[in-house]
């Protein structure tokens, strides 16, 4: 009998963990992305001598330093909740991933120390700017390493491999089948997520401010943030495909559940959010091209065409495969799974939609960067373009939350039973004896 089967009234203990982890990730991903964006911006400011980059980098670094408290508080509360509510599961994870957790803790410590030092010596190192920029990138590196460690654990929970000896421990646990694609997915996602949030914040400030110089600055900041946000978003379908391929090969039942089965609605939801992000970003770029210092009518007409294609490809992604939309709440039409919807199948329509979205995305970003090279008249953006940026910030948060839920719920195929470590440790923390990858380690160590 497992020890400590505590439950939490009303919301249940699963929700407690989900809330703490999801909230923490929303801060952690932003901090990792923002530190690297700020360090890059500081470097660009050093090279180009444009004041906007330096002002932006310093303000963002200051915000990250202050935001660290919330992210760290949620992290430690989550660990406390996990130890209290799932003690057996946590001890199993510790058994397999002791060194990973240890390295993660020190990377986290390194990140805190360097981020604080980076912000505090900003003026002191004003004449040694290169060194100061390096501080920012080192802080970002520590954050990425901490993320990598925790990704090993998170990916192992979905696609554990059988660890049969000490020699195969690292290869089969740390480098399990979905670890690398998950890490790449999150690495790129950090930039995209932080970029969209920065753009949304800039949009909000642009609409609120009354000073002309601030309007110009926030207009520029919205453009800069969106370049990061959308620029990295369009890489995600390829990486996401690699991640899903890993899940399909090593946990086919989970893949079927989230892509084709009862939880496929989560992916429909996800592509709706991505559709909003893509259309809002492209519309912003089209709008912005009107304010290029050097008039670029042809470029703008091409961008309008790209907006049309973006809308077309997002529609292809959104169309559900069959009429069983959300079976959990009875949202099923016609014959349910038997009723196939035209243009809704994964092959070829979803592939065409995703690849098309990427190609059009690269095309519009290239057009926009071409126009950026000659510069824009800042401070003249319309109200609607700023609403588009704010919509991006809102929908990117929904994207993050939806993706987090999708990955975690993939271990609950038919809920019979649900797993903490897929196919190995059940929700009541009991170990499945047959085929459980952790058996040799736990039994070998007396677990």
């Amino acid at each position, binding site marked *: 009998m497992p020890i400590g089967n505590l439950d939490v009234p009303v919301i249940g203990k699963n929700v407690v963990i989900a809330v703490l982890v999801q909230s923490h990730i929303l801060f952690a991903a932003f901090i990792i992305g923002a530190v690297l964006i700020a360090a890059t911006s500081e470097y660009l400011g050093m090279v180009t001598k444009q004041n906007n980059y330096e002002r932006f980098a310093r303000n963002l670094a200051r*915000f990250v330093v*202050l*935001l660290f408290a*919330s992210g760290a508080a949620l992290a430690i509360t989550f660990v406390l909740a996990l130890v209290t509510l799932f003690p057996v599961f946590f001890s199993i994870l510790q058994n397999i991933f002791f060194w990973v957790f240890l390295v993660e803790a020190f990377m986290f410590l390194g990140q805190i120390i360097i981020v604080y030092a980076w912000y505090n010596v900003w003026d002191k190192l004003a004449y040694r700017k290169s060194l100061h920029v390096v501080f920012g990138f080192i802080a970002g590196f520590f954050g990425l390493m901490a993320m990598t460690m925790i990704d090993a654990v998170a990916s192992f929970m979905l696609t554990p491999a059988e660890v049969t000896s000490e020699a195969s421990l690292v290869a089969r646990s740390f480098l399990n089948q979905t670890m690398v694609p998950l890490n790449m997915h999150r690495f790129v996602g950090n930039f995209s997520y932080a970029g969209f949030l920065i753009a949304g914040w800039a949009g909000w400030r642009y609409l609120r401010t009354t000073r002309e110089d601030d309007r110009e600055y926030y207009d520029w900041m919205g453009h800069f943030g969106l370049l990061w946000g959308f620029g990295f978003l369009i890489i995600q379908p390829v990486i996401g495909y690699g991640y899903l391929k890993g899940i399909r090969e090593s946990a086919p039942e989970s893949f079927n559940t989230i892509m084709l089965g009862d939880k496929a609605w989560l992916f429909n939801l996800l592509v709706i959010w991505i559709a909003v992000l893509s259309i809002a970003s492209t519309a912003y770029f089209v709008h912005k091209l009107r304010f290029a210092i050097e008039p670029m009518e042809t470029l703008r007409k091409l961008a309008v065409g790209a907006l049309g294609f973006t809308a077309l490809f997002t529609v292809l992604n959104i169309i559900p495969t069959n009429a069983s939309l959300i079976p959990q709440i009875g949202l099923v039409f016609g014959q349910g799974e038997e009723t196939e919807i035209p243009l809704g199948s994964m092959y070829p329509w979803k592939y065409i939609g995703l690849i098309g979205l990427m190609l059009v995305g690269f095309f519009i970003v290239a057009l926009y960067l071409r126009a950026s090279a000659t510069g824009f008249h800042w401070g003249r953006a319309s109200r609607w373009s700023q609403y588009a940026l704010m919509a991006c910030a809102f929908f990117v948060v929904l994207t993050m939350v939806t993706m987090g839920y999708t990955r975690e719920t993939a271990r609950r195929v038919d809920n019979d*039973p649900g797993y903490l470590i897929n196919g190995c440790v059940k929700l*009541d923390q009991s170990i499945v004896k047959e085929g459980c990858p952790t058996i040799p380690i736990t039994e070998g160590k007396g677990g």
Partner: protein
Amino acid sequence: MELALLLQQGSTGDPTAIGIFRFFAAFFLIITIYSSSLGFTYWISKEE
């Protein structure tokens, strides 16, 4: 009934009324914690 199944009853992955309630309760809590922490951080970061 097996304990594993009992624990899952009414959870977020279960299509019962309490499961749906918990799904939205979790979402509401995440957004609340997130937005209030961001708002708090903005408030303490304002230079006035």
